[in-house]
């Protein structure tokens, strides 16, 4: 369909965007790649009065080396992220997850920042950001602030971003000596995760020294599987030990029933996929 009428402005700078958004208040929306927003407008499920397009802001695009972390511009597309050499070297988990997003056209338009700001429980990047302890850099009417991933995803499609806030970049600590895997479960190649598991594992001498695990679509926000991480820490890198640890994947999860799957089925999937993700990440 055709969206309801709206006003549109193409921001010339981040400040410009913040000002335009602040003026529009609750009726304003940031337009990034449009891959989540436009379908909602076209189905007339959303009808913001003002769209502030970040598409012209080159400074929000690209991946930068910040020493012990990468800084990924919010407007960097999925396609750019998944091909970026710095991402491949220091945060391959992000590249792997970005590659599973939608199809080619969607990856060429959809953005890393847009995925995080949209906070779809079925989206693949929020869980990855959570597993990697990413920190969001936000510019709003009251200035610049940093929000860690653990505080950023607040509720169903809801983040710590307020009216007038723009997510400008994401700081991702480099993981050296870790190996990672994103296990996405979906029936069709171009669909969202029914459940997804982001895993990062650091091995030392046949055992697992440290692990980070986050689950996609096992609640209204991505869930950090602390129980699994705890069980893995110091555990032998064996299939049995990983399976035992993965059994704790449901701690802290509260999966929903929706049009794609029942909570019961998600409950079945999470430990299985966690086991597979950790085994793949840890080379077990």
């Amino acid at each position, binding site marked *: 369909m055709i969206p*309801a009428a709206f006003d549109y402005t193409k921001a010339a700078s981040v400040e410009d965007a913040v000002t335009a958004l602040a003026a529009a208040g609750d009726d304003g929306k940031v337009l990034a790649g449009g891959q989540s927003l436009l379908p909602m407008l076209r189905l007339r499920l959303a009808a913001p009065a003002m769209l502030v397009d970040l598409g012209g802001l080159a400074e929000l695009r690209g991946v930068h080396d910040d020493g012990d972390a990468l800084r990924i511009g919010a407007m960097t597309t999925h396609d750019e992220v998944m091909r970026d050499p710095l991402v491949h070297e220091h945060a391959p988990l992000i590249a792997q997850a970005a590659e599973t997003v939608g199809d080619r056209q969607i990856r060429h338009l959809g953005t890393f920042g847009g995925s995080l700001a949209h906070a779809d429980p079925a989206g693949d990047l929020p869980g990855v950001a959570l597993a990697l302890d990413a920190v969001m850099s936000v510019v709003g009417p009251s200035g610049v602030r940093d929000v860690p991933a653990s505080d950023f995803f607040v509720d169903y499609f809801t983040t710590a971003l307020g009216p007038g806030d723009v997510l400008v970049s994401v700081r991702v600590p480099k993981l050296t000596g870790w190996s990672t895997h994103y296990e996405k479960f979906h029936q*069709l190649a171009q669909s969202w995760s029914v459940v997804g598991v982001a895993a990062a594992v650091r091995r030392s001498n046949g055992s697992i020294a440290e692990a980070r695990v986050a689950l996609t679509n096992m609640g209204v926000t991505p869930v950090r599987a602390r129980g699994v991480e705890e069980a893995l820490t110091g555990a032998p890198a064996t299939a049995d030990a990983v399976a035992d640890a993965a059994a704790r994947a449901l701690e802290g999860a509260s999966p929903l029933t929706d049009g794609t799957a029942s909570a019961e089925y998600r409950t079945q999937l999470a430990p299985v996929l966690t086991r597979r993700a950790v085994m793949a990440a840890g080379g077990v």
Partner: protein
Amino acid sequence: MTVTEQRPSGEVGRDRRRKEDARLITGRTSWTDNLSLPGMLHLAILRSPMAHARITGIDVTAARGAPGVVDVFTGPDIADLQGAMPCIWPVTEDTVLPVYPPLALDEVRHAGEPVAVVAARDRASALDALELIEVGYEPLPVVLDMEAALADGAPLVHEAAGTNRCYTWILDSAQAGTGGDVARAEAEAEVVVRRRFIQQRLIPAFMEPRSTVVDPTGDQITMWSSTQVPHVLRILLSLGTGMPEHKIRVIAPDVGGGFGGKLEVTPEEFIAFAAARRLHKPVKFTESRSEAMLSAHHGRDQVQDITVTARRDGTVTGMSAKLLANMGGYLGIIAPGIPILGAFMYGGIYKFPAYRFECTGVFTTTTKTDAYRGAGRPEATFALERIMDELAAELDMDPLELRRRNWIDSSEFPFTTAAGLTYDSGDYAAATARATELFGYDALRQEQAARRASGDPVQLGIGVSTYTEMCGLAPSRVLGQLRYAAGGWESAAVRVLPTGKVEVVTGTSPHGQGHETAWSQIVADQLGVGFDDVEVLHGDTRTSHKGLDTYGSRSLAVGGIALVNACQRVVEKALPVAAHLLEADPADLEFAEGAFRVKGAPGAATKTMADCAFAVFQSHDLPDGVESTLDADATYDPENFSYPHGTHLCAVEVDTETGMVKVRSYVAVDDVGRVINPLIVEGQVHGGVAQGIAQALFEEARYDEDGNLTTGTFVEYTIPSSADLPDIVTDRTETPAPGHPLGAKGVGEAGTIASTPAVVNAVVDALRPMGVTDVRMPCTPERVWSTIVAARAAGGEGR
């Protein structure tokens, strides 16, 4: 003179790239929505959000005043103009034919039913104004489940009908005298297997949403529409609205797919037709994808109770099928007949001595159903091939062995089945032998045994489908017996232009099949002209006034013969001209290798069709009685259906921890008779198999308990892309259709018909050791997993 009945050496049988594709793929063509006429208004349709309700009032005042709006109207406003939607296939004398107004008058019977229309200067204004229309609805009870709809005291979809039963149609071989009595077969049977299969509702999901443009000029009116059936549409517009047929011109320009979904005459077309007449202006209506999902007709949606009886040695003795078929809230043009098209196919390739079929059509408060690729035959083939696997399991016999013991041998054709059809030809053993070889059947069975023994969490399943179908719709005589209102013939006209180029006018209406290419190949060989020298014209009732359009794998099987016959008439007309030019006696000439020459005189002078065409164009010195044209036309009405067949084999891996099914390999060996263009045939098989796999694994239209469609976008209605489908290994055997000058049988639906049971049989086969005996379609991961859980709970072996 003799017209050589050769296997033409030239074009037929060649892999030709489709000549129509450049314009179709680039979109630089006459898709209906590309049309824009001066002064054209855009229509938007307000649709009911309720599945069943009485309309208590509609307030259009605000919408009328909205920017750009020219008119807003409701059903009562156009009651005398809009006519009524026709159903042309009442399958029984007492079939209930409810009144079906294009735009609702006082009651709505499915979510998405049109209730009001805005005409505006642009599409966006029309859509915006829809939001200003206020409709009062008094909810009525919904009826979604077919058995509930038939129960005493069920709320009625059509109060005036007094029942939700549309019809009950029965075919009993004992009564028809075509076979034995199934009750007796059951009483005497050593083995009886019963199953209930559910054919889930599907959405045809053609690529181009439906669109129509209507242009009233004087007392004439032209409708462009994205339809499969321009000829049928013209007649039904005339009969449905009272506008005389000769004042109506219908054009189906290039049409972006149909799959049966555009084998319909739609309320939207009738509404646009009425709007143009009301406003005296050209109007356009193009639906959104969401509207297409919600309101274009759906397919399948049957409950099938199947009983097969057999002896312990595997010989089948009887087949009985009892169906409920969901019609939806109203009848589509041929909806009651769709399950009946399957009624003759529940015996498939096997020698069932006794057969009974009963189908009850049921009204529910859902979108209407109608034709969808295969129309009745995929449902039949699914039920049959599924229950053959269940019988094989019951007898502890290899499913291929069970089929071998029961199929018709190639020496037994023509073979008359207990359903009363006479199969023309086939070689089931040859197709099966080729398929098992390509598939590596024995090696896969060994791998399956090994995985079962080791308790591998990923189990392997092998599915078999040895199908036949009836296509080439249809002998008009048979259609008459089945109470179908039209015939099944097809027409073709050939025009030879002065420069020797040829225009072909066909009554078929391609919407992606490649008729322009295949018809050109046929004509090239028949008339000895170049492939590129033929232009195929279709889909405009002014250039092609006779025809019955494209569906039911009929275009080549029926229209192809009309074309050959027309070509032969051209040759006959050219003969005296050529004789005159060669100064020979017509009786001494032959037409061979594309030219006329004196028989038995190789190397002698020849005259081509172009020579003859120019000679009649000049007409300076033609012999007496020779017409100044070579043009000819022909119609053809088939004596019988044609019966392609084949063997499809599928291997799936089922992850028993997640329920995920992966198709590992797929082999399709089809026998579609002689092939005009192998590349097109392969494309049809690929697309058909993809659609059949989609029914098996991915697609299902669902309603919530209030009758709202919950699969209204491609996020919920999950059609697979190529990334989700296996490599398909295709091959063919060729048993020519006897009596058909081209030997062709039809291939448009075969892949869809064959593949669904092959895939589901494979899924069930993988899980059978766990106690699973069926998995409902689509076999989504969650459904497979919960089936495993239920089987374990019921005490299957379990792993």
